[in-house]
């Protein structure tokens, strides 16, 4: 085996630091708080891709905006017509290119604009995320949320939570270096 498990643990060590750092505050107060810094003075800012379906979640994100509900700028939204448009390739591509977390948002099951799209999403993502977990990629890096157009506040809070979760996990190295360079 080209790389030892110990070096893996080391690679993850700084990432895990925030949870142990004394400066660490409870999840919800961390947001936009400049105090969330590591010992070297540089806070870890995760990169998060958030796929939103046009009809519910994207509108929910819009509502979060028009209600001026804040969530970290680490979240970047990509609009798709329906969550069922999200190809596992897109998610893997995001990880490949350095995303630390990917969240898929769709209408609540049963409320899909296309009536059945998110039912397929639910099965696909359940299997994909379980598979990623099986490969050792923390399941906390992936998430599916059902957010309606009326749930602006929920969209913002889900994003805050997810960012915080990824901050705690630290940088996503795993999907980048599956083949060891050492």
């Amino acid at each position: 085996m080209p790389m030892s498990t110990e070096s893996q643990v080391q690679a993850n060590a700084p990432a895990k630091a925030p949870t142990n750092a004394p400066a660490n505050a409870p999840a919800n107060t961390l947001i936009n708080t400049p105090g969330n810094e590591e010992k070297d003075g540089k806070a870890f800012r995760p990169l998060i891709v958030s796929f939103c379906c046009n009809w519910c979640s994207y509108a929910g994100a819009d509502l979060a905006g028009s209600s001026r509900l804040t969530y970290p700028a680490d979240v970047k939204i990509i609009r798709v017509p329906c969550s069922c448009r999200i190809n596992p390739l897109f998610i893997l591509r995001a990880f490949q290119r350095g995303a630390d977390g990917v969240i898929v948002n769709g209408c609540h099951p049963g409320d899909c604009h296309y009536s059945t799209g998110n039912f397929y999403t639910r099965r696909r993502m359940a299997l994909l995320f379980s598979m990623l977990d099986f490969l050792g990629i923390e399941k906390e890096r992936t998430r599916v949320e059902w957010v309606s157009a009326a749930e602006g506040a929920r969209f913002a809070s889900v994003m805050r939570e997810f960012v915080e979760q990824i901050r705690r996990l630290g940088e996503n190295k795993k999907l980048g270096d599956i083949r060891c360079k050492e």
Partner: protein
Amino acid sequence: MLKIGVFVCWCGSNIAGTVDVKAVVEAVKAEPGVVFSTDYQYMCSEGGQSAIRQAIKEYELGGVVICACSPRMHETTFRKAAEAAGLNPYMVEIANIREHCSWIHKDKEEATEKAVVLCRAAIAKLNLNKPLFPGESGVVKRALVIGGGIAGIQTALDIADAGYEVDIVEKSPTIGGRMAQLDKTFPTLDCAACILTPKMVEAAAHEKIRLFTYSEVEEVSGYVGSFRVKIRQKARSVNRELCNGCGECIVKCPSKTASNAFDEGLSKRSAIYIPFAQAVPNLPVIDREACLRFQTGKCGLCEIACSAKAIDYEQEDETITEEYGAIVLATGYRPMSLDRYDEFQYSQSPDVLTSLEFERILNASGPTGGSLLRLSNGEKPKSIVFIQCVGSRSDDGCGKSYCSKICCMYTAKQAMLVKDKYPDIDVTVFYIDVRTPGKNFDEFYRRAAEAYGVRYVKGMVGKVAEWKGRLQVQAVDLLEDKQLLIDADMVVLAAAIEPDPGARKIGAMLAVNMDQNDFFTEAHPKLRPVESPTAGVFLSGMCQGPKDIPETVAQAGAAAVKVLGLLSKDKLVGNPCVAISDETLCNGCSSCEALCPYDAITFEEKQVMVQGRRETRRVAMVNETMCQGCGACTVACPSGAMDLKGFTNRQIMAEVDAICR
């Protein structure tokens, strides 16, 4: 390379207050394809739009990115502006830097940085955009209404009155539906027949309406604006051209033991019959199961009796195919079967009836000629107990979880009708809740309880038992908190209603889904309540959910308006962001076909050019008029042959790459 112009909106201080728009303008200048970038106070204003038009001409832009508010707000505005300058409207991409950026971030540096990323993603996507052209299709100016109850009749009349042709397909031998079986209607106690039959006659006489009774929809193909529907007209064994409706055949028919469905099986009818006196059309039909001629070959009395020579034993089913621009589902309901409610003695005692059966007893044309009699012994009852919510609002696994909505009111009506005619009869109603939202509904119920002395008891009945030739009702009075034992001569069960079981087959033909209770689902439960998820298919009446007559009529009118809106168009312009299959990549596996919610994908054996060679392959074909652009097929397709215009795999991956750069 595509020449791209970037326009960054201030939105007054909405964006500019948090995002350094000048910095965004500068930061994206080096992006691939960008030849021009600028900012403006309000991009959506006429000034802003004109700046876009001007820049498109001046810099010969092939595409524009607008960094502004949500595309859900002004995407159409900017597309139109681009189109006015000669650009394809789909060469416009919006970066949402207001709702998704300036409004949610406080730190200007952070927000500016994010705005730049969002803009880069839009540029990356735009670089892969292709001009898109929405497809056009024609509209057949004729509608089909499936179901000839009050919902279907009203929808058809409203469409026909506006000048369009309508066909009604009704599976039973007459139109009229459930409403024709009713005696009186709440809350005004009009006689149902008096208000319904004129409408039936009007529909039959209307020059724009054709009736296909005793007929069923067998097959549907096509899509909004142009459905092809195969209709099977079942053989009546009576020639409709010759029959004059005299009814002599019915009098002479010796087989008079068939169950009369119009009386809910409480009476018998002859093998050749007209369902009820005011049936439309007034045309008999031979029930071949009951007819001696068909069963034994020995009879033929009706043929002898018919002076018009209209009896035709050889008649066969006829199938016709018609084209329609729109289809309305008005397939109605039925009371659910109470087989599983043995505790109420429904299957055992003739004096335990469903409300619809009781309605027939009250009706002058019903099995008792309108006399209120016990079916067990023909005596007048002294005490009647009504039990509400039998199978409704149920969690026992036998019934329905929903409220059937009409039972509280018709029970009050029936109780009141009994009391009105026979004040000496004791009438008790058991209820869970009395629900009376509706114009004059609560007043009606109170009148029953207060003015007519109907006894309302909150509580469910545990058991009905036969006892000394009468019925004994065991119940709980929840308000008094005591057990009740009531002697009754008749028990009337307000059976839950359920969608007509024939609806499922029709829904499947039209790709209209049903909810967990088998009601058709709407395109949107609040904002598009009479449209089905399938374009060009509309919903009317009980098939969509429980409702009373006024609501049904109102919804029938609403469905008609939607149909008219469609039929009044000469061309339908589609959404160009639809699925497209690359036939050189398609495996023909049918995965996409299996999950398409709109049946928009079909397969064809086709000559395909592969690496300069001609090959016959099974390939997917997308019907652009039916496709709504969800993209479910694109992920199901293993070879990547299926893609979605406007949201292609490469476009979305380009966005991902730009964001993750």
